[in-house]
């Protein structure tokens, strides 16, 4: 065991894992986090706490992790390279580990022009691949990127994200391979709507033996409305939403119900794809729906964590 996290135990024992996302609030109020933790406890193995996602200032992911751990819920902290240089990244990794955080997702990060602080100076000292490589050396050998070797290195389970739907498509498996070589233990994918394209990507992942080296958690997003489908199709770079799905949401009598149904179907489908070791449910601003999705998709009960 690298970190001994619940997520690690589930994945390493060969069970199908479930992770979900909790978006920290745009305030100093811990209650929304506590509420979501209580509500979703037992419906997923670990919960991602986003790191100022889309560059909107929010309660920090590490602080959020500590808040949900008080509810006995396991966090995955996201750490982007946008706002921290190598000194801060390594320092925060040590701090997070000392606070009991065991899962870390390494991300380059959304550019600040997407968010609510467009005048910010970004950092990007690292990208996600370098971040993984540096964190991996730090956890395995206690070796910092500058060469100093420290005592009591952090014990963390390292994750990455990958997007099979970004260009150039023919490079996306190679990019995953780089992250695996850099030290990723698990990978949460971008939300999947185009199953054919995802399966093609998985074919190559398996052909290169990467499914044996990294646990792939397929990303899904339950949609609330046809507007959400259209927005993701047209406005989110690197996201592919087929027309059938937009139409299905548009023609639905009850869009929310249809969104759940669709998501459940997608999970059922993904469970059968060889090499997929779990799902990652990103119910952005709709956390309440996660228990229902998990239940309907037959993901319950979750393995007991001791």
């Amino acid at each position: 065991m690298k970190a001994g996290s619940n997520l690690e135990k589930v994945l390493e024992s060969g069970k199908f894992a479930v992770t979900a996302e909790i978006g920290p609030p745009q305030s100093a109020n811990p209650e929304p986090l506590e509420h979501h933790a209580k509500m979703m406890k037992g419906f997923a193995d670990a919960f991602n706490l986003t790191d100022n996602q889309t560059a909107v200032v929010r309660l920090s992911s590490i602080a959020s992790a500590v808040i949900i751990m008080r509810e006995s819920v396991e966090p995955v902290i996201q750490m982007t390279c946008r706002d921290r240089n190598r000194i801060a990244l390594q320092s925060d990794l040590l701090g997070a580990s000392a606070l009991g955080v065991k899962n870390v997702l390494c991300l380059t990060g959304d550019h600040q022009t997407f968010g609510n602080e467009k005048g910010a100076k970004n950092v990007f000292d690292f990208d996600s691949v370098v971040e993984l490589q540096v964190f991996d050396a730090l956890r395995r050998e206690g070796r910092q990127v500058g060469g100093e070797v420290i005592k009591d290195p952090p014990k963390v389970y390292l994750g990455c994200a990958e997007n099979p739907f970004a260009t150039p498509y023919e490079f996306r498996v190679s990019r995953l391979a780089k992250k695996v070589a850099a030290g990723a233990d698990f990978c949460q994918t971008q939300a999947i709507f185009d199953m054919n394209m995802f399966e093609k990507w998985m074919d190559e992942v398996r052909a290169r033996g990467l499914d044996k080296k990294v646990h792939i958690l397929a990303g899904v997003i339950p949609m609330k409305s046809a507007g959400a489908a259209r927005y993701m199709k047209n406005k989110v770079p690197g996201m592919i939403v087929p027309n059938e799905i937009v139409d299905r949401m548009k023609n639905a009598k009850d869009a929310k119900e249809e969104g759940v149904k669709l998501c459940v179907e997608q999970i059922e489908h993904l469970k059968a794809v060889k090499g997929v070791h779990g799902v990652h449910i990103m119910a952005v601003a709709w956390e309440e729906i996660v228990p229902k999705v998990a239940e309907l998709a037959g993901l319950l009960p979750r393995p007991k964590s001791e």
Partner: protein
Amino acid sequence: MIVAKRKPLNEIADMVAPYKKVAVIGCRSCVAICLAGGEKEVKMTVSALKVKNKKEGRRQEFEALVVERQCEKEFVKEVEDKILSSDLVLSMACSLGAQTIGDMYPDHLCFPGLNTGFFGVPEEQGVWSEKCVGCGNCIIHTTGGICPISRCAKSMLNGPCGGSSNRKCEVNLDIDCAWAAIYDRLKLQNRLDLIESITPAKDWSASHAGGRRVYVREDARLTPHQKKGREAVQ
């Protein structure tokens, strides 16, 4: 070349308003090529300022001047008397020209008339694009001759990120994704192996991150004796 843009006329007008006699000095190098501060732009700016003053009933004297390369002292010297007889210099060179004048005549005011943007190239008539940020340790032999530090919005070393869409950048869908371009170029050159392996953390100490840079070439420097000789000639 250095690519710059002229400041908006109103900003310039406000900046120079308190000064009676203003020497507007352009440069015939980069900023002339990027149509920001060459002879033509200096003249146009001076006449626009005059028109504005006339409308608003303000009296100021402007002189339009241009030097070969404002970042070199020798060329600035040629207009020294004009600088010294003015109340203010409005530099229409890049900030390097403006700072050269400022450093040569520290008790004299020199304001920037341009916003200096980046190191770039003219792509076509009227279009300039950034291609280097002077990181001090060039790596483009490994990236198909395309600079990821300046041309990728996130200066990634292992791109493209998950936002690359139709080979365009997530930050601006009108701009090519640098890493998609690198991939295509390396493929063309049969060198995709370069992008398959990890590029580790970059040492930024050779960039501005390491502090202000001054490069010295001892073999090119003048001896004290040579310096004296040159001063005597001037």
